[in-house]
Structure formats: structure tokens, C-alpha cells
């Protein structure tokens, strides 16, 4: 069985936010809820790197471990999903998640959280595949249609890879062996001293 993984190649990501847009479009994510976001490190400085991040579908998911109502489950493909009919919007998964993946729509006063929403690897939820209710609650279910997540499919530079962990790793390994760890241009080390980047 495949184990689904995301991988973002920091050498290729150009912070175009195409993945964010693709995600919002594919899943009709409400305003203020970001299932995926691009983070730029050292923005405007030498050594700037961008990375697209969403739920990483952890093997031992911290969100699932702290959930008081046990609403998370892992599919046979290794995708971490949750049941919005069980979720109580307590916010514990947001405290526990290393990647800031869980999001909450705020409907009521005093910042009361609605049902948690997060990246589903475009695999919908526990409701019948590609039903109207599933789309409304969890967004599209591209996995059931034999497709990969919209964000990775739309990535222009193929920085964001999604799919079976072994295949993603193979692609990335090939890239690394071709390009090496660091740029090999003469004088690069002088222009950008390693201590600064």
C-alpha cells in the first residue's frame, strides 16, 4: 500500500502561492482558513528560501494524540483525516501540531472556534466519496478519483511533490544527485559566505 507524503523542494519553490490558490479553489475553503500556506525564510536576505506547508499527515500524529473526542483516523494510504461530526472545536490539535495545520472558522463571539478544518490530501472525509455533503464539509476527494492533491498537481516549478512516499523520495534523490548540495558557481562562497546563509 502506498504511503502518501508531501515534499516541498526549497531550491525550487518560488513563492508564487499557486498551491495555496489551487487548494482554495479545489476545496472551496472559507476566507481566513488556510489549509496550505507558503512560508518564506530570510525574506529579502541572502539565503532566502520558500516552502509550502500544510498538514504533513504524520505517522504518529500529535493532533490525533491530544484530541479529546478521538475524531482523527489514518486511511490505509497514510492520510490523516478527521470527522467533523465528532470535532468539538476545542483547539487542542492546533496547540499540538508542529506545522500549524489545523484551522478554525470563527462564527461566534469571543473567538469561539467552529469545527476544525485542515488539509485532507484532497481525500475528503468519512462521508461517501464525492458526495455533495462530503464536498461541503471536507472539500474535494481527488484521491477517490485517482488523482493527486490539487496543490502539487498545479505547482509550476514542481517544487511541491505529493504521492507515494517512495516515488516522491526517488524523484527528489535524482534531483539532489544531479544538482549537488550547493551551487558550484565560481566565487559563490565569496559572494554569499556560508556563515551568513
Amino acid at each position, binding site marked *: 500500500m502506498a504511503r502518501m507524503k508531501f515534499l516541498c523542494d526549497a531550491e525550487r519553490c518560488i513563492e508564487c502561492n499557486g498551491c495555496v490558490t489551487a487548494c482554495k479553489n479545489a476545496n472551496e475553503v472559507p476566507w481566513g482558513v488556510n489549509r496550505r500556506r507558503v512560508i518564506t525564510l530570510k525574506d529579502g536576505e541572502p539565503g532566502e528560501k520558500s516552502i509550502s506547508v500544510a498538514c504533513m499527515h504524520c505517522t504518529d500524529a500529535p493532533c490525533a494524540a491530544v484530541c479529546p473526542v478521538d475524531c482523527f483516523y489514518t486511511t490505509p494510504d497514510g492520510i490523516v483525516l478527521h470527522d467533523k461530526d*465528532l470535532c468539538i472545536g476545542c483547539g487542542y490539535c492546533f496547540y499540538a501540531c508542529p506545522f500549524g495545520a489545523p484551522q478554525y472558522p470563527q462564527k461566534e463571539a469571543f473567538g469561539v472556534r467552529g469545527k476544525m478544518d485542515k488539509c485532507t490530501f484532497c481525500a475528503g472525509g468519512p462521508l461517501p466519496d464525492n458526495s455533495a455533503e462530503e464536498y461541503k464539509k471536507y472539500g474535494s476527494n481527488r484521491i477517490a478519483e485517482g488523482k493527486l492533491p490539487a496543490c502539487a498537481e498545479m505547482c509550476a516549478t514542481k517544487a511541491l511533490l505529493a504521492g507515494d512516499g517512495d516515488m516522491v523520495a526517488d524523484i527528489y534523490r535524482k534531483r539532489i544527485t544531479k544538482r549537488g548540495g550547493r551551487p558550484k558557481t565560481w566565487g559563490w562562497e565569496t559572494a554569499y559566505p556560508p556563515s551568513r546563509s
Partner: protein
Amino acid sequence: MSRDRSGTATRAKRHKRIMLWSLLVMVLGTMLLPLTGYLYVSIVPAQAAQGSHNQGVNPHANYWRAVREGDKGYTSASGPYTTDTLIQNGGENYRNFRNGPISSIGPWVMAVALLAIALFYLIKGTTRVEEPRSGRMLERWSGGERLIHWYTAILFIILEITGLSLLFGRAVLIPLLGIQGFAAWAEFAKVIHNWSGPLFMVGIILEIVAWARYNTFKSYDWDWLKKFGGMLKRGVHAHAGRTNAGEKIWFWFIATFGLIGVCITGLIFDFPNFGQSRETMQWAALIHSSLGVLWIAISFGHIYLGTLGVEEAWQGMTKGEVSEEWMRQHHDLWLEEIKKGGTGQTADKAARDASKRSPGTASS
């Protein structure tokens, strides 16, 4: 002969001394020698840094190490739960502390408290009023005080049930109610907990304002603690004012750990709309649940002493009145103060109430 014996004695003493000293040297050596590593690092930091650099450590590793340690970046995405941190580590501590010590030790703290109380009750039974009652009644708690107490107490029990459901329900209630049944209860419990929390805090503050002056520690409180309030032995009594040393400790526990440790931290993650960080809310949640469990465990003792443990204590908080004999046995100094009329209105009212209740005995 005697010199010989003294000679062996001093030798034995010397042996013992040598043994002790060598043991001490060994223990200190095993403890201190490994610490010289710190000394080495602090003396040659520059050299060490230079050395590692020359060995060609991949600077990318340092780049990603900083990210792993929670380095912030920039993101154009915006929303209340959107962060510019790629990886935050606090969550793992939150998870391990919540699913570790709080979940494993917490239930034991409460269970041990309950067991200890049950055992104490089985051995000692109810503390009864020793003198025969004259029928003279005195005011223990005024109507206002009782109102504040029961307002807070009822909210405490509601918060206790809902809070424990959220903390331990996954382990305890899901097998009983089923996953959907428990989710429905948890949703309700969360709303109730979130709304009664701030109302409960109002009660706690009112209690502190009303009773702080009766809860200053006096010299006789030490004696009360040493005698354990006379709870262990019939006929042994300790001095106490309006509140005894045990009640004072309970009061100050609530005023410090309860108000600051549980109520304030509760507010921090009850209202997530003030821009407080994830780290703040993680710590607030951990402190809230661990001190909350402790508070519940201690409250068992308070509830026991107010109901089964001490005869007539219950009436003091429900009807507001207790017999003079009860007062003399448990709060002798307060009784003196009432008799002196030092408390003004309270004592007048007590006397009036007493005469209303049993005019024959009050006039005698």
C-alpha cells in the same frame, strides 16, 4: 589489656573515617569529573567554533536546524490561525505533558484523596458535638455569604464534571457512550465549561473579598495544624477563629493556585481572540488542567468535612446557624468575639436570632 582495646577501637575508628572519606571522594569524583566537559566548552568556545567550521560542516544544516527550532519566516497568507512559523516544538511538550503526567498521575491524585478520606471516615467516623446542646443558636454564615458560597460551589461542580469529561472522557466515557454519544456530550460540556468558567471566577473573587479578613494566619493556627484540628482524638481541641487553619489553607490555595493558576489560565484559552501565542495557550492549558485536577482532589476534603466529617458543619452553610456548643468546640475564639460583641452587627443578629429561636434558654 585496656590499652589494647582502646588501640583497636581507635584503629577501627580510623578505618571508618578513611572509608567515609574515600567514599565521599569517589562519589564527588563520579559526579564532578564528567562536568569538566562544560569547563572545556566554556574555555575554548571560539576555537571549537572555528574548528567545526574548518571541518566543513554543511551550513545548510544550520539553516534547517534553526527552522527546526522554530525560526519564523514570512507568509502572505492571513487568518486567525495562520502562523509564520514553519515548525513549532512546543506542541510536542504539550502533547507529552498532557498525555503523560497529567493523564497518568492526575487520576491517582484524585483516587488517593478519595481513598484517604474514605479510610479516615471508616476509622474516625463523624466528629460529633461533645457537649449536650443547650438549644442556643448562633449565626455562622450570613445569607450573603451562603449565597456566594453555593453560587461558586454549584459552578465548581459543573466545571469539575465537564472539565474531567474533556480531559479523561476519551479514555473513560468513549467506551461507555460510544464515540458519537461522547462527541455530543463533549461538545455540550465544552460550551458549558467555557461559559461557566468566567461566572465561576466572579464567585471566587467575591469569596476572596468577603473572607480574606477572616483568613489571616495567627499564631494559634500552628497549634491547630500540630493537633490536626483535634480531628484525630476525641476531647482534643485546637483554637480557631471564624475559620480554622485548615480552612485558611484551603482559602489561600483558592486565592493563589485557584484564581491565578486555574481561572486566569482558563481565560487565556477560553478567549483565543486576543492574539495570544500558541505557546502561551499551550502552557495555559497545561497549568489549567494539572492545577484543576489538584483543586478537585483537595475539594473532596472540603466537601467531606462540610458534610459527613463534622456534625452540624453542613447546617452552618445551609441554614446559616449552628449551636453554641458546636461553635465552642470548633471555633472557640470566634465565639468569644461574638460574646464580647466585638463583631458588632453579626453578634447582635446572632443574639437576636438565638432569642427568637429559643427564648427560654437565651434569657438564662
